[in-house]
């Protein structure tokens, strides 16, 4: 009896030591979880989640300070991926942070732009080129559609243009094989 308890105790101590040692030995630098979360976030940097950019939101999720359903650009799919990564149940998007919109890019009406540089300062990804008193232009390929440049513009010359579908961007739609629909049309 005593021997058994002794053996168990020794075993426990040994395992504890191994665990402790490996924790020190294999300690991972930084916060890889935040990194992984950040990789899922769409990098729009729009701040709709309530944090100043995707990275801070990722860190907040990693620390358990924010919920996973606050990113409208990521949509339901983003929530699903986050839930999968964190091993929690997916939940519907929190509407108070906004709803997903079709992907758009900003467009500056160059006739109206007064070259105030306010939008340049607001753009989180430096997607606006121009200088003081020069008309500004959006570099469409780099614009994330975050809409942060809209409010600062004093003459309201920036508008969001949904990305039009053209041949190179066209993709197949989900083929709907809803048995119910099919048969209903047949019956009708």
């Amino acid at each position: 009896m005593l021997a058994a308890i002794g053996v168990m105790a020794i075993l426990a101590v040994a395992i504890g030591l191994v665990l402790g040692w490996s924790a020190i030995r294999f300690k991972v630098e930084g916060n890889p979880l935040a990194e992984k979360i950040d990789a899922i976030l769409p990098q729009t940097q729009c701040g709709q989640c309530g944090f100043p950019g995707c990275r801070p939101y990722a860190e907040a999720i990693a620390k358990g300070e924010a919920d996973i359903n606050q990113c409208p650009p990521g949509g339901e799919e983003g929530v699903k991926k986050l839930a999968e990564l964190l091993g929690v149940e997916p939940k519907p998007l929190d509407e108070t942070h906004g709803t997903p919109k079709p992907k758009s890019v900003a467009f500056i009406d160059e006739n109206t732009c007064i070259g105030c540089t306010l939008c340049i300062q607001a753009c989180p990804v430096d997607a606006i080129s121009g200088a003081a008193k020069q008309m500004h232009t959006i570099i469409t390929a780099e614009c994330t559609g975050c809409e942060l440049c809209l409010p600062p513009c004093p003459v309201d010359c920036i508008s969001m243009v949904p990305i039009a579908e053209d041949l190179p961007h066209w993709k197949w739609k989900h083929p709907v094989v809803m048995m119910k629909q099919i048969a209903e049309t047949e019956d009708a």
Partner: protein
Amino acid sequence: MASPFILDRTSVTQVMAWVLAALLPGIATYVWLFGPGILVTLSLATVTALAAEAAMLKARGYPAKPFLADLSAIVTAWLLALSLPSLAPWWLIITGTLFAIVVAKHLYGGLGQNIFNPAMVGYAVLIVSFPVQMTHWAGPNELTSVHLTLAQSATVIFGGDVPRTTLDAVTMATPLDALRTGLLQQLTVDEVMTHPIFGHYGGVGFEWLAGAFLLGGLLLWALRIISWQVPLAFLAGIWLTAGFLNFYDAGRFGPPWFHLFAPSVMLGAFFIATDPVSGATTPRGKLVFGLGAGFLTMAIRTWGGFPDGVAFAILLMNLCVPLIDQYTQPRIYGGADKEPRT
């Protein structure tokens, strides 16, 4: 809708219709050797299955027409009916069919979604819940003194007033039951086999029945509606396991040919284990599935609490299908698993 714009003529309805057609020789033999009672069971199961299917489709918001027309409910009903004792009471048949269609099929998502073979779920539920009623097998005409007519069978099935003596004269233990009871009484296989129910292979009448199902199964194979892997592996699984046991101790374990031709094996091999929805899909997976089901059938027959194990074996293997499929993915064209042929 995009390409292709032409289709082969085969449809689900056709596939199911061929399965039903392939069962006909078996049913005919059944009637010939065991009397017309099975027709009552079949009709009752069919009507119940169709009604249940229609009700479930309606409840789930699907239109009944295309799904009733696919005949899959009838296939389930017939397979269940052919597995049940030929004189099982009406409420047993209805309960089993309802369970198969409502729970095993529709609660799992309907056609194509069920992970378990519906007919076998129905059978398993019955044999677990009503073991006594599940022994009402009519004996082969050859051995019984009283032969029931269609009307008499119906009376028996619907619980009508049938003299106890008539019933006793008609029902008989199946060969598997007989073997099991005999072995439990410490008799050797050879001693048990002197019982008149044992024929040349699997029991008087039953061996012909097995032959008829085998014939139907070969027809399905010739039409490429079933693949050769599952039946062959299933039969091989039974034959090998039984052969090994019999070789080990012929006194305690029945001979392999007996196990092959015992009731339900041929039906199971060609019609039940080959159910595509709940079976494995890859060629190697089908072999594993069949072998596993064969082995489990023998294991349950030998050591389990029930005389026959086909239903449980297939249900257990159904459970393993995702795993089997995942680990038996075949090499693709130009795939690296094996060096490309040169």
